[in-house]
Each structure stands twice: as structure tokens, then as C-alpha cells.
């Protein structure tokens, strides 16, 4: 759980850095995207790795929930929380929503099944003096986020991600055993900062598109 | 009844080592053939079970609680004495021996006490090795504090929870053996009777407190580690479940009961707040290291808040009466002084039954954080119960029944007058005489369990053929039938009085007539009234529910039945011991300024009571006590 969580938490950060290249312009982003995809073995290896981490994360979550339910079959007449944070209690819900989001997100931007027109967006890059036709990720993202419902859903899901990470990262320190009373508040602070950084990083893109800071080329 | 203490010959300091050498041993390969039953899992029972199992014996342990970790040794707060002399302040085995004999007001057996002092140092080593988190100094070595009745600092402690930590240490050793299968542990089982085969203790009958099942258990020897009987007073610092069934059943089967009137009233408990109260809570004696006990000089000031009573209007009565020991005067003396002040109308708080224990000076001298470090958890307990902070205003305290020095009589081997029946810890009478010094109960419990019994029980076992006893014998069937009949009887009375209400009645009489101060008329009155309550009990008891279920009313009723008989025995003993000594204060025997007067010519003995049947006065036997190494002297703490 913790290990797969660590991988996924690391991945979202790198993903966010990639997204932020949108602000550097069409060429920078498309060139970065091309670089990522230019070696199929690396690309597919990485995809498989991520898939494995995701599947592990989901399956361990399900099995832990089942064990936990079995460990406490009968709830109190009145269930109370006196300490648990909002984020920690919502891990199941935020996790499930995020999973649904990831599926849609992959279908939307990677497989492009929901929007087949994305397949035809191309961009010409100059590579070592040669012209290469690549997929126009920039146009795809901007046109995607121009649709208000997509941006809206995206922002809500990133808020879920933020919550999931604030508890998940703090929990991670506990699970691998590097937390104590002295460091608890610092590490919890770090987890919150991480969650918010990821949230702001991701959300800045649709916000910029919606506010017209970034527009479709031409 | 033959009373033979079996004290080994030789100089006092060599008796124990000589005795260990002369004892018969059991070959390691044969030990597993011997089966030992141990009832109770406190410091004495837990440590004995662990140690005997380590040696290779087959042990079966019982406790009435849901886990062996909960025995009432856990509530001891202040500390455990040991003659380590880590403080280089003049302590020695001989001094601990001397202090304990003197503290016991010359009514204990010298040889036993010396042995206790000898093994005291081993206890600390054993417990430290088990991981008991004793208080330490910054250099990493063990810290000590001082305690009542001693002028050296020899008490080892773990904040205010020494008993808890020592018990958890013994429990961990016991748990290890349970895990290894060498001890079979039965929780929520109460011993209801003892089984004798040919005059030897060879088994017990228990009630499973969950299912109500009555069952026999056979063994080659039986060890009782079932604690004291302070709950005869109803309100005491004991756990609500503490009871005397095991010791009383043994007494009724022929074990002599020694000095039942020696009960200790602890000076520093939280005063009673009303009739609803189910128990009294102790505030460790260690508080008297830094707290000063006082009442207003003038009874008219008692209603005033303490901060409005100026220094010159306060009577620091322990410091005034006992200048050399001051607030650290022994328990019996401090308790009586508090009672005296309240009897004079100078008590404080509800019902004017309380005196102040004031930390203002210590807080000023050492700072609040130092006091918090030493007593923080005790101050917290006090605040939870009373709603007051002892950092801001003085604690109110009052004496309460706390420990019983009396118990089943045992010889030097800790064997009772019934062969094969061994009694350890508070349940026996052996080491504290008429008064126990603070931090000595933990020491005795662990001494008996870790070091004494494991060296004396094998001597008995070596003379027994192992494994010939089984529960199919008639003796077991008979006792089991008696127990069933007894239980049925309790359930069938169907009167109007609950066990608790009857226990409350008994407690009131005991506290008033056989408590901190006793006199002939009062004891005679108690001896008239107790049979009346017993009659009421057997005629008008109400126990709802059934026998074959978890039934806490039935448990209470069964325990009270024995307390009624024991209370009567306590009064007989108190009446016949026509002197004052230690915790037994007869008002007829006191000096002009209220100090106890011992009558050594007539009473330098242990009184051992032999059961003569229901309703009959038991027979009083004596064991003469010799004081060769600590000459008899008037105990003075002035």
C-alpha cells in the first residue's frame, strides 16, 4: 500500500511538472511529450509499471478494507470521530473517485476514445534539422480544458487528489516508521504542502485556459 | 493443630542459605511430572508461576480477572524497598531487616524478615533485567526515594506506578511460560474450595465466571496467592473484586489463620464523598516526602478555604509530634494522628473527615515541574476524582483500609498448617508483623514468588509421589457437591436484600468497631451484630439470575458470605489481643499522649485461629516470637 502509494505520489508530481510546461508554449510542451514517447520500450515499460502500481494500490486497498470490516463487524450505535482528519476518513471515497477519474483521463487523453478528433491534431517539430510530425498535445489539452464540464470535473478530482495525498503522504511516513511526536507536525505539514502543491500545479492549467491566459494556437 | 515454624538453626544471616542447602531437590527430569496449582496472578502468584514453570514444573494458574495482568498488585504506587545501598547512606540487609521488624512493631518472625531483606536486592536485579522501567538518574543508574519508617533512601520506583510496572514484569515472565505451554492459565475462574486428600492439599474447585461451570482440578501441591481481605470493610483501597474466599475456605479446611486483626489503615487516601462510593483511592505514601500534613489549630477555622488560614494558625501535627520522622512517620502512626485531629473536630472537607496534605512549600522550593515529574500521575488521579488541583490547593486526605498483615499462617517454608498448601504474598501473615512499612508489600510478594517458594516447594514435592491424584477421587466429588449446594443455596433464598447492601452494613460495623481504633465494648458489640447480618444474609439475600451464567451478583454474594465469617474472626482476634501493636490499636492500651502500648510479656506471639465449625468460636493457638537480633524496644519515631 505504502510502496505503491509512494510510486503513484511521485508520479503525479512529475506529471504535474510536465503539465506545467504548457506555460512555456506549444513547442516546448509538444517537444517534451515527444521525448517521453520516442522510445516505445521505455514508454510501455513505464506504463506497465504505473499500471502495476495502480492495480496494487487498488487491490491492497480493497483487501485491507475487507479485513478491516471483518475485524469490526458491528459498529457502535453512535460512531464518533474525535481525532481523525477529514482527509483520513475520506480515503475510500477520494480513492474511488480518483480511480474513476484515472480511467476517464486515460480514455480521454491517452487512448483518446472519448474525443476521436484529438487523433488528428498534429504539430511539426524540428529535430536535428529534420522536420518531424508529432501529436499536438498542446492543442489537445487546451481544447479539452476549454470544455467547461471537463475542466470542472478535473478541478474537483484534483481536489480529491489533494485530500488523498495529504493523508496518504503523512500516513506513508507512519507506515515506513520515520515519524515520531517531534516530527509528526512537520511531516504532516509536509504532506499538506505536497497535496496543495500538486493541486495548484494541476489546477493552474485548466484555470489558465478558462481565464483565457492560454489560448488555442492561431 | 500443630504449630511448628520450622525455623532453621544457626545465626540469622545464615539461616536461609543453610536451609536452601538442606532442602531436598527434585531432579530436573522429574519436575514436569509434578503438577502445581497456583491461585492468583499478582506479584506473588505471577512470579511464582513463572519461576516454577521455568524450573520445569507443570503449573496451572487461576485468576478471577479477565487477564493475569490485572491483579491488584498493579495499583501499588510508591515503590519497592531493597537493601542495595546505592545511595551510600548506611543501608544494609541488616538495616532493612531491623527497620522491618521494628516497623512491624515486633510482631513478625525474625527469620522470615531477614530472608526478605536478603533477597530484596535480587528482586531489583531481576525486575531491571525484565525491562521494568525504574526511575533513573541522568547518569543512567537507578534512582531511589525515601519512604515511611526508614531513614535511608532505599525505595526503587517507576513514577507513581511501581506496582503496575513490576506486575507487568511478572506478567511478561508468566506470559512467556503460557506461550511455551508450561503454564496453563485460566482467567475468569474463581477458586471456591480446597480439596484435601489424606490431609494434604491436592486440588481446588473453581467456578468459571463466564459459564458458571463448577470444576475440580487436581495437583501435587496448591499455592494460594490470593491477596488480602481489606474489602471486609466494604470500602477500602482494594479492587472491588478482591476477596477472601480462597483463604477462608482453606481456613475452614484446617489451615490456621494468623493475626486476622492486623489490618493496615493507610493514612493518605482520598476522603469518602458519599454513600454511593464503591472504593477508596490511595494517594501514594511517597507524597509525604514533599507534602506537609496539617489541620487548622482552631476547629472554628475548618470551614475556611485553606489559603485563608495563615501559617501560624495551622497545626503541622506530624512534624509537631514526631520531629525526627515528621511527615514520614509510619502508616499506623500517621493514620491515628489524622483520626485524632478529626476526632477533635479539626478535620476538613465534607463530614470533617479529612486533613490537608500541602505541597505549597515543595512547589516553591523545587518548582512545579519537579513536583509534576515526581507525582504528576497522582495529582491527575486526585483531580479526576475530586475535581480539585493539588498544585493550587492542598489535597484532602483521610486514612482508609489498605492492606492486611494478617493471613493464613505459614511456616518458614511458606507452608500452611495443611501439608501441601502454600500461601504467598499478602495472603499469608509472615513478614510484616502488626504493621507493614511502605514499599514492602511489593518486596514481599516478589520475594515469595521469585525466590522463596521456588526454593521451598520442591522440598515438599520431593517427598510426594507425583501424578497419583486425579479429580475422579471421592474427595473431589464431595467438595464439588458442596460447592454446588452452596451456590444453589445463595440463589434460592430470594429475599429482599442485595449482596451490596448487606456488605455495606458489614463494612460500617467493621470500620467503626474494628477499624483504626478498637475497644472491648465495641468489639463485643461487633461480635453481636455480625451474626445478625449473617442471619439476615442467609434469610433475606436476593441474587437474581442463574448459576450457569455470568452472574456478578452471585459472585458478590459468595464473596460476602466469606467476609461475614472473616469479619467475625477479625473481631475475635482483636478482642483477644488485649494490647496495642502496629495497626491494632486498642484504646485501653495507650500512653497519655495517645501512643500504642505493647504488652510484650503477654502478646509477643502470633495468634493462630483454628476453625471449629459454623457458629463455634474458633480456637486460638500461639506461635511465640523470639526477638534475638532486634531486641524488643518501644517503637519510637519521635
Amino acid at each position, binding site marked *: 500500500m505504502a510502496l505503491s502509494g509512494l510510486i503513484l505520489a511521485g508520479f503525479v508530481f512529475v506529471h504535474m511538472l510536465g503539465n506545467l510546461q504548457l506555460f512555456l508554449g506549444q513547442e516546448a510542451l509538444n517537444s517534451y511529450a515527444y521525448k517521453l514517447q520516442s522510445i516505445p520500450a521505455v514508454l510501455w515499460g513505464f506504463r506497465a509499471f504505473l499500471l502495476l502500481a495502480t492495480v496494487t494500490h487498488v487491490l491492497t486497498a480493497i483487501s485491507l478494507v475487507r479485513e478491516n470490516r471483518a475485524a469490526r463487524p458491528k459498529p457502535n450505535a453512535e460512531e464518533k470521530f474525535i481525532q481523525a482528519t477529514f482527509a483520513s476518513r475520506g480515503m475510500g471515497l477520494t480513492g474511488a473517485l480518483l480511480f474513476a477519474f484515472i480511467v476517464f483521463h486515460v480514455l480521454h487523453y491517452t487512448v483518446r476514445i472519448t474525443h476521436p478528433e484529438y487523433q488528428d491534431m498534429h504539430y511539426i517539430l524540428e529535430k536535428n534539422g529534420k522536420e518531424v510530425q508529432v501529436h499536438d498535445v498542446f492543442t489537445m489539452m487546451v481544447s479539452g480544458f476549454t470544455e467547461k464540464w471537463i475542466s470542472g470535473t478535473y478541478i474537483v478530482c484534483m481536489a480529491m487528489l489533494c485530500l488523498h495525498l495529504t493523508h496518504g503522504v503523512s500516513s506513508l511516513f507512519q507506515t515506513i516508521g520515520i515519524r515520531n511526536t517531534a516530527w509528526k507536525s512537520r511531516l504532516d505539514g509536509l504532506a499538506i504542502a505536497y497535496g496543495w502543491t500538486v493541486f495548484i500545479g494541476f489546477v493552474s492549467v485548466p484555470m489558465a485556459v478558462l481565464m483565457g491566459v492560454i489560448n488555442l494556437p492561431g | 493443630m500443630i504449630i511448628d515454624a520450622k525455623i532453621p538453626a544457626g545465626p540469622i544471616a545464615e539461616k536461609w542459605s543453610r536451609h536452601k542447602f538442606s532442602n531436598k531437590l527434585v531432579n530436573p527430569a522429574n519436575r514436569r511430572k509434578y503438577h502445581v496449582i497456583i491461585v492468583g496472578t499478582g506479584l506473588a502468584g505471577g512470579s511464582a508461576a513463572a519461576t516454577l514453570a521455568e524450573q520445569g514444573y507443570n503449573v496451572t494458574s487461576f485468576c478471577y480477572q479477565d487477564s493475569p495482568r490485572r491483579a491488584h498488585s*498493579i495499583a501499588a504506587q510508591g515503590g519497592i524497598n531493597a537493601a542495595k545501598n546505592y545511595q551510600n547512606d548506611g543501608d544494609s540487609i541488616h538495616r532493612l531487616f531491623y527497620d522491618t521488624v521494628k516497623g512491624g512493631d515486633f510482631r513478625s518472625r525474625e527469620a522470615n524478615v531477614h530472608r526478605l531483606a536478603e533477597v530484596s536486592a535480587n528482586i531489583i536485579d531481576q525486575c531491571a533485567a525484565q525491562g521494568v*522501567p525504574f526511575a533513573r538518574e541522568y547518569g543512567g543508574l537507578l534512582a531511589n526515594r525515601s519512604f515511611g519508617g526508614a531513614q535511608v533512601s532505599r525505595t526503587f520506583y517507576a513514577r507513581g506506578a511501581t506496582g503496575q510496572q513490576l506486575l507487568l514484569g511478572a506478567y511478561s515472565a508468566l506470559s512467556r511460560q503460557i506461550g511455551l505451554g508450561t503454564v496453563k492459565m485460566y482467567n475468569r475462574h474463581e477458586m471456591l474450595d480446597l480439596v484435601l486428600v489424606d490431609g494434604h492439599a491436592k486440588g481446588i474447585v473453581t467456578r468459571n465466571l463466564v459459564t458458571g461451570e463448577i470444576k475440580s482440578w487436581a495437583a501435587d501441591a496448591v499455592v494460594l496467592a490470593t491477596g488480602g481481605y481489606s474489602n471486609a470493610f466494604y470500602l477500602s483501597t482494594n479492587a472491588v473484586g478482591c476477596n477472601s474466599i480462597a483463604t477462608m475456605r482453606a481456613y475452614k479446611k484446617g489451615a490456621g489463620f494468623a493475626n486476622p486483626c492486623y489490618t493496615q489503615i493507610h493514612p493518605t487516601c482520598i476522603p469518602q464523598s458519599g454513600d454511593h462510593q464503591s472504593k477508596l483511592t490511595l494517594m501514594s505514601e511517597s507524597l509525604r516526602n514533599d507534602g506537609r500534613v496539617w489541620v487548622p489549630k482552631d476547629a472554628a477555622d475548618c470551614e475556611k478555604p485553606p489559603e485563608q488560614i495563615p501559617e501560624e494558625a495551622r497545626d503541622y501535627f506530624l512534624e509537631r509530634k514526631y520531629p525526627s520522622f515528621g511527615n514520614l512517620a509510619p502508616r499506623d502512626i500517621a493514620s491515628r494522628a489524622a483520626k485524632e485531629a478529626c476526632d477533635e473536630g479539626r478535620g476538613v472537607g465534607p463530614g470533617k473527615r479529612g486533613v490537608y496534605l500541602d505541597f505549597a512549600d515543595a512547589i516553591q522550593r523545587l518548582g512545579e515541574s519537579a513536583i509534576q515529574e515526581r507525582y504528576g500521575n497522582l495529582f491527575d488521579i486526585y483531580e479526576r476524582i475530586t475535581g480539585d488541583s493539588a498544585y493550587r490547593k492542598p489535597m484532602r486526605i483521610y486514612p482508609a483500609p489498605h492492606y492486611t498483615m494478617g493471613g493464613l499462617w505459614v511456616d518458614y517454608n511458606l507452608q500452611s498448617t495443611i501439608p501441601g498448601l502454600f500461601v504467598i504474598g499478602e495472603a499469608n501473615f509472615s513478614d510484616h508483623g502488626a504493621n507493614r512499612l511502605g514499599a514492602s508489600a511489593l518486596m514481599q510478594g516478589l520475594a515469595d514468588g521469585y525466590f522463596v517458594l521456588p526454593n521451598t516447594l520442591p522440598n515438599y514435592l520431593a517427598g510426594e509421589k507425583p501424578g497419583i491424584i486425579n479429580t475422579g477421587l471421592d474427595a473431589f466429588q464431595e467438595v464439588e457437591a458442596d460447592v454446588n449446594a452452596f451456590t444453589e443455596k445463595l440463589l434460592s433464598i430470594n429475599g429482599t436484600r442485595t449482596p451490596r447492601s448487606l456488605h455495606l452494613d458489614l463494612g460500617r460495623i467493621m470500620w467503626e468497631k474494628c477499624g483504626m481504633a478498637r475497644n472491648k465494648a465495641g468489639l463485643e458489640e461487633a461480635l453481636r451484630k455480625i451474626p445478625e447480618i449473617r442471619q439476615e444474609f442467609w434469610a433475606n439475600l436476593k441474587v*437474581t439470575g442463574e448459576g450457569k451464567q455470568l452472574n456478578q*451478583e452471585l459472585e458478590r454474594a459468595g464473596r460476602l458470605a466469606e467476609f461475614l465469617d472473616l469479619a467475625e474472626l477479625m473481631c475475635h482476634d482483636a478482642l483477644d489481643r488485649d494490647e496495642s501493636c502496629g495497626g491494632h490499636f486498642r484504646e485501653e492500651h495507650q500512653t497519655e499522649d495517645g501512643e500504642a502500648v505493647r504488652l510484650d510479656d503477654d502478646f509477643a506471639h502470633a495468634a493462630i485461629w483454628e476453625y471449629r465449625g459454623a457458629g463455634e468460636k474458633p480456637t486460638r493457638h500461639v506461635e511465640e516470637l523470639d526477638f534475638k537480633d532486634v531486641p524488643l524496644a518501644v517503637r519510637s519515631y519521635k
Partner: protein
Amino acid sequence: MNLKLKIWRQDTSDGSGQFKHYEINNVSPDSSFLEMLDMLNEQLVESGDQSVAFDSDCREGVCGMCSLTINGIPHGGHQGTTTCQLHMRSFSDGQTITIEPFRAKSFPVLRDLVVDRGGFDEIIQAGGFITCRTGSAQDANEIPIPKPLADDAFDFAACIGCGACVAACKNASAMLFTGAKIAHLNSLPQGKAEKDRRTLSMVSKMDEAGFGNCRNYGECSAVCPKEIPLDVIAKMNRDFAVASVKGFISK
């Protein structure tokens, strides 16, 4: 004070139970919560009913025998307080109080409010000790233990084994209990020799006994009457990871 009580009643461990309603009047605010229940039981017995079974023994907050979930919170939710130390002055006149047993599969109800916490004993039996045969110990001062370490060990060892941590955890996890004992023994020099074996064995027994998993809610530590810190769980996790890796390498 006059109070309304809603109490879980259950006849046997295999049977099902239900809440029953009671009223109790003239309760002294100075009485403890359990004394209030004693009073109720006196009324019940006098009227021919069976008393409400509940566990208690020392009634001074150290034996760990008392339990009860009061208004949804084990031990009633006053910091550092067991049920037996809870006093009625913390409640208000006319209040309805819900009282139920500690809920967990590993703590089966035996009757009414009494549960079986034997799982805790099994965890200790699996390794919650330092192997040290009676009489084999060296002088107590031969192993100096720095005061801060001794103080920490005491804080971990203060656990009374009441089970509130399990009852407060929505997953009925026993990690605070197990962690406290592991932290106590593993942090002391005396306990180092058996550290790995102890940790692996206690954790595996804990899982076997059917306790749930930690989700870092922190409810356990919040209700703990001895205020055992969550650190002990982190420490247990670390010691477990180290012991597992060592075990894997040496295979």
C-alpha cells in the same frame, strides 16, 4: 442528577443483543460512572431483574479491566481517563447516555457489556517479554540506561491493556497496544537481543487474532487513558520492516 440510560443487553456470547432503556434518579455528581451503574444494578436486583454485567476491578484507572463505550467513545472521551475514573459531574442533568460494549470481532461480547480481551494476552505471550530466567540477572546498575530513554520506556510501558484503542478504531486495529509493548521492550538495552524475533512474532499473532489494520486515524491514541503516543506504531512498523528485511536476507 436524573439520567436516561440506553444500555446494551446481551444474554450470551452467541446470542444477539439489543439496547434497553432505563431511568435513574438522584445520582450524585461526585459518584463515578461505575458507581452510577452500581446504583442502577441495585435497583434492577431489588425489582427482580438481572443486573447489567460490566467489568471493573481496581476502580482507580490502572488495572485496565473496565471498558464501556459511552456515547460512542471508549471510556467516555475525557483525556487520559478510564471509565472508572469518569465522574458524573462530567454529565448534565437529564442527559441520555448510551452505553455499549467495546466492539470488535476479536473482543467477543460475553454478556451485556463484558467482552473477552484474550487476544491481547495472546499477543504478549507471543513475544511481549524479555527472556530472563529468575535468578539469572546481573546487578541492576550494570546496564546504565539514560534517563530520557528510561522515561520514554515508561511512557510506552504505561499501557493498561484495556482495549480502548481497538474499540475506538473503526478497523479494530490493535497496533497501538502491540506497538506500545514493542516500543517499550525494543527501546531498552535489555530487550535488544530478542528485538527482531519479538517484533515479527507479536505482529503475526496480532494479525492472526483478527485485529484490523491501521489507517492512521489516530483515534486509538486520542482515547487511550494512558495517552500512549502514535509514535509506537511508527516504531513498530520500522522494527517490523527491519526485521523482515533481515529475515529475508538471511534466508
